[in-house]
């Protein structure tokens, strides 16, 4: 674990430099430990694949003080109490207008469309981080046999619920938004509701399985 400063009022707690489950588990433990500290000087905690970004209130603390404290408190992550990961089953309409890139992915991977769907549904994915737009889960790890590159030029608008893949990841767009991932299907499940706590259907560490809807 390394703590590095980032801007006047933020620090990064870094656990590795690549996407893997071991690093993810450390990030997740650190995230829930940071929450359990209930510190008034911490105003934002953003966990991602390899690190936690902490934004702090610099009227109440300093980088030196907070980094010192976190170095101590995060030294042992073995006993962190965490909520059990929720498991989400997400029904998806694959292909046609719902998934305009499905046939590209099949062609790129030299598979049939049915094989791409089968492999996308075969894995239980882990939510590594939530971001890009509110509630967007970055999930892995995608079967490398259906990995496809991002679009050269992102689409300016795709519908809410679009399911995309990019390299070894898959994700779901909670809102109509721009999108650079290959869209293979769409779900009717609502991923983010600004009117209802806890707002986001998913959080770091959750598990996801896709089910083909006919």
């Amino acid at each position, binding site marked *: 674990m390394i703590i590095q400063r980032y801007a*006047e009022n933020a620090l990064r707690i870094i656990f590795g430099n690549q996407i893997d489950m071991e690093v993810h588990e450390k990030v997740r433990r650190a*995230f829930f430990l940071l929450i359990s500290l209930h510190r008034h000087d911490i105003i934002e*905690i953003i966990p991602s694949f390899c*690190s936690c970004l902490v934004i702090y209130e*610099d009227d109440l603390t300093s980088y030196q003080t907070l980094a010192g404290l976190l170095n101590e408190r995060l030294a042992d992550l073995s006993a962190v109490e965490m909520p059990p990961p929720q498991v989400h089953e997400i029904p998806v309409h694959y292909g046609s207008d719902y998934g305009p890139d499905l046939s590209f992915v099949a062609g790129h991977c030299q598979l049939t469309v049915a094989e791409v769907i089968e492999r996308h549904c075969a894995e239980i994915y882990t939510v590594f981080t*939530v971001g890009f737009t*509110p*509630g967007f889960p970055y999930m892995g790890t995608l079967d490398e046999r259906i990995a496809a590159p991002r679009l050269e030029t992102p689409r300016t608008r795709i519908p809410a619920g679009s399911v995309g893949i990019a390299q070894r990841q898959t994700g779901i767009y909670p809102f109509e938004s721009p999108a650079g991932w290959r869209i293979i299907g769409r779900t009717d499940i609502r991923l983010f509701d600004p009117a209802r706590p806890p*707002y*986001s259907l998913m959080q770091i560490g959750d598990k996801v399985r896709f089910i083909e809807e006919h």
Partner: protein
Amino acid sequence: MTSAITVRNPALLSLIVDLGRTGFGAVGVPSSSALDRYACQALYCLLNRANAPVLEVMGPRFALQFDSDVVCAIAGARVKAFLDETPLRPWASFQSKKGSILRVKEITEGFRYYIGFAGRIKAEAVMGSYATNLECRFGGLNGAPLKSGDILHLEESQEIETNVIPLNLIPPMNSPHILRVIEGPEAGSFNDGSRRHFWEKGYHELFTVSTNLNRTGIRLNGTPLVFKPEAPKSIVSEGIVPGTIQIPGDGLPIIMLNERTIGGYARVAVIARADQDRLAHLKANDLVCFERITVEEGERLWREKQKRIVQLQSLTGSA
């Protein structure tokens, strides 16, 4: 006491903002705060309230009509504004009369301006903030920009004295914009020549603000930064702070504003907090250059800026 205001012309874009949303970054919820927070604070001082919803407006020809007497204030970009035929001072509050019309005819310096009232615009706070998340359509007035004919209802209207922010507390907003920056986490990904031209005094590369700018980010045109041969062109996506300057594969900077919690491009630098309000005033074809400072210098500049906010509060008696 309640009163109402009718939007007659929303200009290019006007929306409800405040000082932003915090605490939900872990599920990807960005701040969506007013881009010029200092101007927003100035309105709070002029109007004797804190954390109220205010309007953030882009472009001239904004107009609204008052259906009762209410104190109103404008800050941010310097504008030529009129209450009916009477010219208004910039960064000041004024008393409007029932039936009178506020018109902004021209912007003379800066880009976005802010309008607030001595009353609370009736809007729903979403996750603790009135700020509009335009992309996801929540907050503000049903998550949407204001349109002609929209009625803003004011609650808790108060009669207050009008006031003026003195010139020495109004920051410059014109091009060229010299923005101070602190090294970012991936500053080391770029070759020495690129870094020198990016932020060293005497070598300054001038960038031009492209037409590709919105509340999410500002793309700049100019000489692309060059990655070191061994440096990756994208990073494993990670949390970012507002004002982060990302460099995608084409080498041209994108300044991230207050609408993203995570980024996947190399972060060469971060705009010093004290200079972030200036980002609200970058418009297409403006010139921008960066000047590197230490993080300690950034902290010092931020403390100075906070002192100016305290000065605003004491001048207007709202402390």
